[in-house]
């Protein structure tokens, strides 16, 4: 499985070892991001999902192995060229004081600009389109500081869109949002994927959100891939227990027919834990 | 706050709370032992070295021999070093907690500037020339500026940012004044340049008697503030929810810091780095709990100050280097080393 070499998919990690300082997060990890998919990476806290995303976006250099973008080692490519192919919405972003939505989204055009080509009419058109498709066109002249959390996240997504990359990586885009804004952002992602044909890779906390929106799911635990495939194929009670250590039922989502994870009642779970303890 | 978020609980590195407490208590004991050794060294070492038995004789069986006279002279210097060091460390710890700024030091709140401006005024306009004459001026200047910063910072409504801004603003203006006076009055410059570096060499019993009451009150206040400051570290709202009196805690913290720094600065001149560095370093192994930070800072700051004083006497015999200089030269590299050792995630 480690020897498989993608000639089809644009983004993949081959046998990468990922570490911060001496702390190794994942070893010999291989991942393929299917083209034109909405791939979601799930797993418990500290399983390495954000780390994997950082490696895929060349934010973190693997200590072994390589990340390939269009068949080239991503670190060896010119920074701006990568930035025109692959966009990232990180968790840690700072909105400069007193910047308008329009100007912030406009900064997403950086990889397409140069010293003498600072703001072409093409730039302006793309920025307006990005704002329109994320539903922040109305807010264009507002200051980012005054927006709500949900609006602000849309603005950042608009900025990543303005980068016009066929691949877009999102690191927990729904954290800190309330439920209707979470669904809002996910709907937006699905739209970008379906209507604009972009390849999306997102790290999500909520397994049910992942199962509903993803076309391709990667389940990670302790730095290795436990399962990957469409949610319908891989999300089972056994998998959830293996990955998250949670007893549950998997039923069909009454709205969409995708798998829906329902945690077992507290009594059932403690009873099970006791019987497991006795059995062993 | 940016720097010193409590480290994540980690099964491998974090022992159980009880064990951790035992380690910290043991560490504190070791620190006290080190302090005693350094204090003895400070009495023994100087232009003329004494043996330990001579030190013992001088301390407990004073019969007026030459050695005994030397001991009694070095004793007041050592005592002042202990007192001033502890005061600066405590004040720094209180100020860092009060302003929620891990880099706060007495200088940030304008206390050094106030003391310096008062001393230069005393020299130029009141003709004071003796070091012991500076004490009241320095203390007065520090106290006035401490109160002013508190009032400008908004009294009971003071926030960390306001206090820091008020302190920096007053310092700037006062240093401008100080420089102007030193440029126009060469005699003042002649005196000030020695006072500004900070030294223990002028210590005598009278100085100690003068500042002791202020140091005592300040120390008691500071140590009593550990719990309220702990509550305040979690943000104003949480602190209020926990039942802390924010206004009172701020007023008392400012009072404690002003008394401690003012008195220490009055007795030995502005020694800047101790109050910033020691609490900062202490926090890296005690975590954010003021109940540990304060005692550790009280013990380790005089270790640094007295240690630096001893080194200052050893490197330039028979002359000596002022303690303020040695503190920074020795402490600076240690500080940078510790800053570098931290993981980026914590920074």
């Amino acid at each position, binding site marked *: 499985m480690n020897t498989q070499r993608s000639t089809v998919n644009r983004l993949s990690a081959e046998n990468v070892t990922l570490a911060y300082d001496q702390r190794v997060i994942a070893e010999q990890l291989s991942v393929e991001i299917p083209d034109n998919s909405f791939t979601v990476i799930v797993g418990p806290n500290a399983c390495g999902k954000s780390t994997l995303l950082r490696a895929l*976006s*060349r*934010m973190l250099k693997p200590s072994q192995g390589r990340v390939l973008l269009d068949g080239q080692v991503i670190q060896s490519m010119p920074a701006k060229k990568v930035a025109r192919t692959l966009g*990232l919405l*990180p968790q*840690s972003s*700072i*909105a*400069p004081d*007193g910047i*308008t*939505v*329009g*100007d*912030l989204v406009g*900064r997403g055009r*950086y990889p397409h600009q140069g*010293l*003498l*080509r*600072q*703001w*072409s*009419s093409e*730039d*302006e058109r793309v920025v307006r389109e990005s704002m329109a498709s994320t539903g922040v066109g109305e807010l*264009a002249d*507002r*200051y980012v*500081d005054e927006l709500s959390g949900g609006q602000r996240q849309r603005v950042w997504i608009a900025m990543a869109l303005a980068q016009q990359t066929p691949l877009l990586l999102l690191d927990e885009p729904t954290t800190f949002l309330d439920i209707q804004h979470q669904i809002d952002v996910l709907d937006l992602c699905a739209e970008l994927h379906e209507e604009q044909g972009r390849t999306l890779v997102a790290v999500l906390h909520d397994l049910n959100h992942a199962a509903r929106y993803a076309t391709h799911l990667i389940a990670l635990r302790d730095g290795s891939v436990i399962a990957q495939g469409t949610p319908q194929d891989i999300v089972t009670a056994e998998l959830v227990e293996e990955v998250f250590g949670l007893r549950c039922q998997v039923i069909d989502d009454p709205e969409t027919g995708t798998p829906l994870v329902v945690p077992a009642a507290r009594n059932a779970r403690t009873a099970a834990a006791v019987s497991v303890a006795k059995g062993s | 706050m940016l*720097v010193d978020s409590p480290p994540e609980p980690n099964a491998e590195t974090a022992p159980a709370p009880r064990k951790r407490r035992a380690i910290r208590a043991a560490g504190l004991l070791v620190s006290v032992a080190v302090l005693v050794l350094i204090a003895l060294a400070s009495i023994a070492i100087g232009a003329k070295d004494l043996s330990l038995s001579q030190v013992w004789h001088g301390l407990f069986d004073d019969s007026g021999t030459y050695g005994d006279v030397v001991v009694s002279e070095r004793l007041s210097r050592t005592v002042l070093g202990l007192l001033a060091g502890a005061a600066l460390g405590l004040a720094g710890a209180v100020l860092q907690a009060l302003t929620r700024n891990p*880099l706060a030091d007495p200088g940030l709140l304008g206390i050094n500037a106030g003391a310096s401006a008062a001393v230069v005024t005393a020299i130029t306009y009141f003709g004071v020339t003796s070091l012991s004459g500076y004490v009241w001026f320095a203390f007065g200047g520090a106290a006035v500026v401490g109160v002013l910063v508190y009032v*400008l910072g908004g009294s009971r409504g003071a926030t960390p940012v306001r206090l820091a*801004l008020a302190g*920096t*603003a007053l310092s700037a*203006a006062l240093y*401008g*004044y100080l*420089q102007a006076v*030193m*440029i126009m009055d*060469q005699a003042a*410059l002649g005196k000030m*340049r020695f006072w*500004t*570096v900070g030294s223990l060499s002028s210590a005598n019993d009278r100085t100690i008697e003068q500042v002791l009451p202020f140091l005592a009150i300040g120390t008691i206040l500071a140590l009593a503030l550990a719990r309220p400051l702990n509550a305040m570290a979690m943000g104003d709202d949480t602190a209020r929810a926990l039942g802390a009196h924010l206004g009172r805690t701020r007023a008392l913290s400012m009072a404690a810091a002003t008394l401690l720094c003012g008195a220490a600065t009055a007795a030995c001149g502005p020694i*800047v780095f101790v109050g*910033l*560095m020691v609490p900062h370093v202490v926090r890296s192994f005690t975590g954010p709990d003021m109940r540990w930070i304060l005692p550790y800072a009280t013990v380790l700051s005089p270790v640094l100050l007295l240690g630096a004083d001893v080194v200052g006497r050893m490197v330039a015999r028979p002359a000596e280097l*002022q303690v303020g*200089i040695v503190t920074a*030269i020795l402490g*600076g*590299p240690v*500080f*940078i080393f510790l800053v*570098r050792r931290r993981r*980026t995630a914590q*920074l």
Partner: protein
Amino acid sequence: MKVLTKQAGSARPFRARPVRTRGGLSVRIDVRSFTVVVLLLVAALTASVVLIGTGDFPIPAGDVLKTLFGNGDAGQEFIVNELRLPRVLVGLLVGASLGLGGALFQAISRNPLGSPDVLGLAQGATAGALTVIVLFSGSAAEVTLGALFGGLVTGLAIYVLAWKRGVHGYRLVLVGIGVSAMAVAVNGYLLTKADIVDAARAVVWMTGSLNGRDWDQVWPLLALSAVLVPLVLGNARGLYMLEMGDDVAYALGVRVERTRMLLMLAAVLLTAAATAAAGPVAFVALTAPQLARRLTRAPGPNLMPAMCMGATLLVVADWASQRAFGADQLPVGVVTGVLGGVYLLWLLFTERKAGRI
């Protein structure tokens, strides 16, 4: 002051107006920032003319202009072109360098207080200058070289010591504080070792002064600025991206470490050169970028406005010190120090009123 509280919907979506050519070239001009820059330049030049006319031998502004354009009488010609013009030019260049350097440091350390004095550069340069003054009783030119050397070594040391797979803003400030404390100690030591004449000279230098600056200081500063200012402005767009966090900047294709290193090197050179020429003039590097920003109300490091603001501030402060205390009585650093204090107090009151702090 009401920078961030505009009514919703009143601003334009894009601050800057694009200027495009048929050939596909395009630049953006922020009208408000552009106006601020022009006004500041006018203010700086006006203040310069007034300052040239100020002194023991006052010259009316008209005569100053006439002399500058080569039509003055011989006496005025000497005073203006040989004595006062170079001094004013040093003031303008030093102010501009400090303003630009300060804006760069504040942006790189992501800290509004990340000025060269906080980072220890000024203290390092002072250590170099004091070494020359106290240990060698060196000439003015030697003092300048000493300060330059001290500043550069300190800047390099801070960068190397703060480097650990990248330079983190906060670590930079911390290491700077450590280095600065050591430099201050060295300076205090040198001052106690000096004889009183050298000590007096040292204190004037440490305050920051333009007295007696001549063409020898103008040319190196001018040459350095001619190289560094275009370099900095050419790389400024990367700095704007860095403002949004390292990750965002990476994602947008900025070579983060390279940009930061280049700009920091430029900032160190600018500040060290300015300090070498005039001494560590307090607060210009700290306040110029902040004041500029208040005028332009633009996000980002506001490099050009900060530069012009620095130049204006220093020349106006020098003029104020000459008017208030008499010609060459007190160095300009005293005035900038006091002005800095006043600025911070004003900031305190207005921000408190606005309920922002």
